[in-house]
């Protein structure tokens, strides 16, 4: 009986037509050719621990050298942060991830998320900078690795998002000056690639400042990233705003609500809900875009990997290194996209419940 169902499933899903059957066979053949060598290389013949790179070099090309990751993982994750103090960026990463997860759980959505974020970010600041509570001071030029990627993303999105909502509202506003400013800003920033904004912030901006007044490199990069994210998010939010039926605006007006009440109570909740998929899409894109800071010499996760490959003893293990980077990015991006799918489903269910 069971065999029949499996056959039926196969026929329905994999061999439903001639082209499908051909595709299935071709895919299976490709997997059969590619998978076993990959498994051999990545797992069976791989070198997991080695005192130095000699063992890896001896096994050149036969197996992956995960000993590279084992040797360099502290540098990759924490950059040039003082070695003995690595627990601090690790704890800061954990706090940031916890904040994101907590803000993601719908049953925790309430006003106290705001003080929680404030406290969490303060704790991250104390941990990373130190200088109080007996923690030695660490200047932010030494921050690096995963924590830098997470910080750039968190602050980038957390600040850009409210700005984006204001920009989107401004773009749809009837007041010509505000509308003009918002349109001008959005189109200007969207008209140039992120990399040129970063260059502008890191190479041009310092020349405009008075002599001996410098803005920290990390802060400059962060501001450039916020401006960039704000412009893109604003267009996403505007899409959501435009999708709200006119009737909603008119109903709110008929109730006598002021502009801000109408926006906050009627329009935005609906607009943001329909914007969730494109918002998360932009978030994921932004998370990966933070890796562009490597061109201005900031040690984010991808740069630390690149730098660890420059040590002569460990050059040449680029495949292993970048696979590790891919894995870390995959974990974060997959979590974000799975979460947004769940959220969409939950909200759709809630919506359906309200309608019946």
């Amino acid at each position, binding site marked *: 009986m069971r065999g029949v169902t499996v056959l039926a499933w196969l026929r329905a899903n994999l061999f439903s037509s001639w082209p499908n059957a051909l595709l299935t066979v071709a895919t299976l053949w490709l997997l059969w050719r590619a998978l076993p060598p990959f498994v051999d290389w990545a797992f069976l013949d791989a070198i997991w621990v080695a005192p130095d790179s000699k063992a890896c*070099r001896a096994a*050149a090309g036969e197996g992956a050298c995960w000993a590279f990751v084992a*040797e*360099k993982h*502290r*540098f990759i994750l*924490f*950059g*040039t*942060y*003082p*070695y003995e103090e690595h627990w601090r960026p690790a704890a800061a990463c954990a706090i940031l991830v916890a904040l994101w997860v907590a803000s993601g759980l719908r049953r925790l959505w309430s006003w106290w998320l705001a003080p929680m974020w404030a406290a969490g970010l303060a704790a991250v600041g104390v941990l990373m900078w130190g200088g109080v509570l007996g923690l030695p001071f660490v*200047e932010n*030029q*030494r921050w*690096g690795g995963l924590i830098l990627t997470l910080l750039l993303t968190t602050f980038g999105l957390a*600040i850009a998002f*409210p*700005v984006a909502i*204001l920009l989107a509202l401004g773009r749809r506003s009837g007041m010509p000056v505000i509308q003009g400013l918002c349109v001008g800003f959005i189109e200007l920033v969207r008209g140039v690639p992120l990399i040129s904004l970063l*260059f502008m912030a*890191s*190479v*041009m901006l*310092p*020349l405009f*400042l*008075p*002599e*001996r*007044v*410098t*803005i*920290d*490199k990390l*802060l400059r990069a962060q*501001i450039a990233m*916020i*401006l960039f994210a704000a412009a893109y998010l604003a267009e996403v939010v505007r899409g959501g705003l435009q999708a709200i039926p006119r009737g909603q605006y008119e109903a709110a007006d008929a109730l006598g609500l002021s502009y801000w009440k109408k926006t906050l109570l009627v329009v935005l909740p609906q607009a943001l809900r329909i914007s969730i998929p494109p918002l998360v899409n932009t978030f994921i894109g932004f998370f990966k875009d933070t890796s562009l800071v490597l*061109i*201005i*010499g*900031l*040690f984010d996760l991808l*740069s630390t990997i*690149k*730098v*660890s*490959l*420059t*040590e*002569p*003893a460990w*050059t*040449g293990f*680029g495949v292993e290194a970048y696979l590790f980077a891919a894995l870390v990015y995959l974990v974060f991006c997959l979590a974000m996209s799975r979460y947004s799918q769940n959220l969409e489903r939950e909200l759709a269910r809630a919506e359906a419940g309200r309608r019946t």
Partner: protein
Amino acid sequence: MRTIMLAAAASLALAAAPDRAAAQTMLAAVKAKGYVQCGVNTGLAGFSQPDSRGQWKGIDVDLCRAVAAAVFGDASKVRFTPLTAQQRFTALQSGEVDVLSRNTTWTATRDSSLGLNFAGVIYYDGQGFMVPRKLGVKSAKQLNGATVCVQPGTTTELNLADYFRANGMTFKPVVIEKLEEVLNAYFAGRCDVYTTDVSGLVAVRASRAPNPADHVILPEVISKEPLGPVVRHGDDQWFDIVKWTLFALLEAEELGLSSKTIEQNASSANPSIQRFVGATGDIGKMLGLDNRWAFNVVRLVGNYGEIFDANLKPLGFDRGINNLWTNGGLMYAPPIR
């Protein structure tokens, strides 16, 4: 919102540098903030590179530490700003770093029109060629018609073309952007020759070649790449400090003073050593530093030879033209007196 952010940014910057009045000398500003801010390469083996524990290592890094030792008597009072090639001069011009020690070639344009001062040469580099030994090539003059692996966008490519044209030879370039890939191409035999700075060739041969003895670096060096620390125009005292810190590293080696022996030799009767360690004369005072500045540099960082042996020798570099003038090299410090 943006105004608030900009205001916050500006106040942060001012808070970070409360005492940077325009009239202040660099030395006073550096002393007031308590550390030397040094611009280094983001990752170049032997010159400046963070190790597995995130500690900066390399000769460029040691020069920064030496300046800190001269100014503060403490080699750890230095902070490193990793800089890309595009950022480095802006970072120096805008005051983001006090010294740029980032394998930077000393050229007339940079020294004059960019508003920079080169404080000397810490490593004499130059472009060279590496070929597999089995080709039997003994000189770059025999490379007519060769396939050459090269990275684009730098003077390397131009020097290569100039050299072949000047010698009436032809070549087929294989231009690949990424170091990783250009090396793979060379070691896979896609080209007969790989060209970059000799320091790069040495490091690649030692670290990447399956058997380093299978590859030879040809004797011809086709360009001059003197690498050295840089400061910006406008503060001659700071320029002198960096320049003489570099000379102190060379002078110490010439006098036979090393980090291990300088404490015992400090009481030597040799007048040069007496002046060097600050027992006689006021050299330190003239520079605006403690008279034991050079003593501290050598005690805490070492002499040039020690720095070279610690950072470059393990990668397979030999001293060559970077030897002292007394040993047939180009490293020559004016007398410290």
